[in-house]
């Protein structure tokens, strides 16, 4: 697949996404700057598209970073507890400060996502048997434990419903003024691109990386902070989008190989395309109502993951 083909598809889907919705907006309506349609377009449709693009690109890159750092194809924010840790962080901030300000949530959620992922990497270090299948298994269980802690405290604080709304990844509530946090992932993505080669080297293991003159700990910490930043912004603005960081980098690596510098643009675009498709499906199936995007992503994503597992056993090693 060529890069320009992905770009064309992404643009076509973006246009479709802009013009789907309960209110029919025609491109000609936008010529009139003061019309109601233009206002809806600017306040709701455009921010939604931007949010999808940022979230899709960010989550795919986060997955790619984690996979090259751990040198395991099936490690991602979904399968390493990062998203669950971010959610636990939000809950703690809400419980500690009865009216948690936005920045407090951001900071707590970031800290938990970062520490949670580091803890998982520590567990990985202890495992001698680093099977491609075994590692995500541990990661999923680890995420389950974190989320049962969340459920436990949420049950006590009568916050189950709030939690479920963080669990629901959905672009329905994205309007201008409520999604700008996502822009933080833009510098994160650029940094990821600049550090791409170092992540690859760090993935070869601590001794090897040090031999090549790389400050292993520093690179590892930078990589995991980027993952934590991206995950936090996405969880706080959109909710949990499962599988994206797992599926997209794997598909790209199937046809592009593992040179990060080359695969990053493809990963970003494919992530955007994938998320756009899922969102459009969710908006069309029960039109004019919507199905939350995390549901469509999970249904499609889990099937794709199963296919990867079945056909990719040789490849994953």
């Amino acid at each position, binding site marked *: 697949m060529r890069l320009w083909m992905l770009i064309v598809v992404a643009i076509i889907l973006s246009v479709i996404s802009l013009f789907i919705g309960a209110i029919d907006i025609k491109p000609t309506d936008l010529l009139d700057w003061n019309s109601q349609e233009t206002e809806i377009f600017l306040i709701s449709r455009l921010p939604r598209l931007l949010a999808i693009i940022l979230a899709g690109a960010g989550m795919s890159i986060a997955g790619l970073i984690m996979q090259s750092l751990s040198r395991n194809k099936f490690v991602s924010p979904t399968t390493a507890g990062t998203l669950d840790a971010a959610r636990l962080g939000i809950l703690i901030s809400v419980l500690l400060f009865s009216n948690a300000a936005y920045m407090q949530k951001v900071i707590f959620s970031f800290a938990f996502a970062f520490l949670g992922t580091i803890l998982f990497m520590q567990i990985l270090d202890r495992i001698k048997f680093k*099977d491609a299948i*075994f590692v995500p298994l541990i990661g999923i*269980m680890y995420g389950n434990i974190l989320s*049962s*802690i969340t459920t436990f405290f949420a*049950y006590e604080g009568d916050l189950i419903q709030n939690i479920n709304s963080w669990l629901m990844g959905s672009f329905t509530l994205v309007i201008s003024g409520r999604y700008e946090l996502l822009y933080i992932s833009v510098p994160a993505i650029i940094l990821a691109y600049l550090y791409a080669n170092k992540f690859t080297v760090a993935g070869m293991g601590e001794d090897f990386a040090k031999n090549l003159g790389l400050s292993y700990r520093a690179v590892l910490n930078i990589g995991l902070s980027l993952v934590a930043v991206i995950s936090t912004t996405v969880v706080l603005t959109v909710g949990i989008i499962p599988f994206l960081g797992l599926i997209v980098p794997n598909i790209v690596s199937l046809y592009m190989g593992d040179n990060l510098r080359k695969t990053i643009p493809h990963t970003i675009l494919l992530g955007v395309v994938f998320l756009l498709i899922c969102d459009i499906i969710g908006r069309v199936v029960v039109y004019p109502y919507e199905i939350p995007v995390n549901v469509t992503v999970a249904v499609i994503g889990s099937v794709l*993951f*199963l296919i990867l597992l079945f056909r990719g056993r040789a490849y994953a090693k």
Partner: protein
Amino acid sequence: MRSNVMKLLVLAVIAVICILLYGFYDIKGGFDYAFPRRMMRVGAMVVTGFAIAYSTVVFQTITHNRILTPSVMGLDSMYEVVQTLIFFFAGSASIWVVNQYLNFTAAIVAMIVFALLLYRTLFRADKFPIYLLLLIGMIIGTFLGSFVTFLQVLIDPIEYLSLQSKLFASFTKIKVELLYISFAILFVAFAYGYKLISQLDVASLGRENAINLGVDYDRLVMKGLILSAVLIATATALVGPITFLGLIVANLAYQFFATYRHSVLIAGAGLISVIALVGGQFLVEHIFEMKTTLSVIINFIGGIYFIYLLLKESRAAG
């Protein structure tokens, strides 16, 4: 052997203490009201506990591993799928929901069909390594779970409320009639499994050895799978999904008894799960004062134990 009998006796005594504690603790005033109801819950917990333990041990012997359980392989989620489909297509006023027996039977039959299909594709000729099977099972669970959510979004909100009450594990809302049916099913399963148990002892030696010793191995596997599917379906349909219970109690039983005799293992695992359920429910009701649910606690402990088991197994394998 004698020490194992002693251990079983000890477990039985602890189980009875738990049951008595649960039955009589803090029972003010209306004894006639509270006691029968508490005993009803205890009955449900005993049935569920034994069904889950029995089904897990049989399943693990047949599949030659100690990590996979029927629940982890996605059967729990299948229960949610069946109930949601019924509500989605027939509605909460239909005979499929109103008639308890019909609902119960439909859920059990669908789960058995799903289980057999799943096992036939996955366990054919030991093609897949165990961790892959486990991951596949979990992802199938995720898929079914999100498929259910997908349908639930489309369901009328009022219908959804009555669906929701069917989907959470609860010992407080048990239907008496279903309890009797479950008892009957469990009884039949035990009677049927009585002959199976000695064959299972031989089966744990491996396929070739078992066949050499005159066991019709493939038929035994089929029988065992059906038996475990029926039992787990009964337990889930009675109280809702409790994913990790089977895993915990079966592995505790292996450690505690250090034997291959399935009569001892099943009885032991059953008693342990009764203790876990009744004791846990007692803690939830009187210590946590209903501020949490039993399934949250079991999933938390179960998750940690599961990681411990995985790490231990991987060390043995690596």
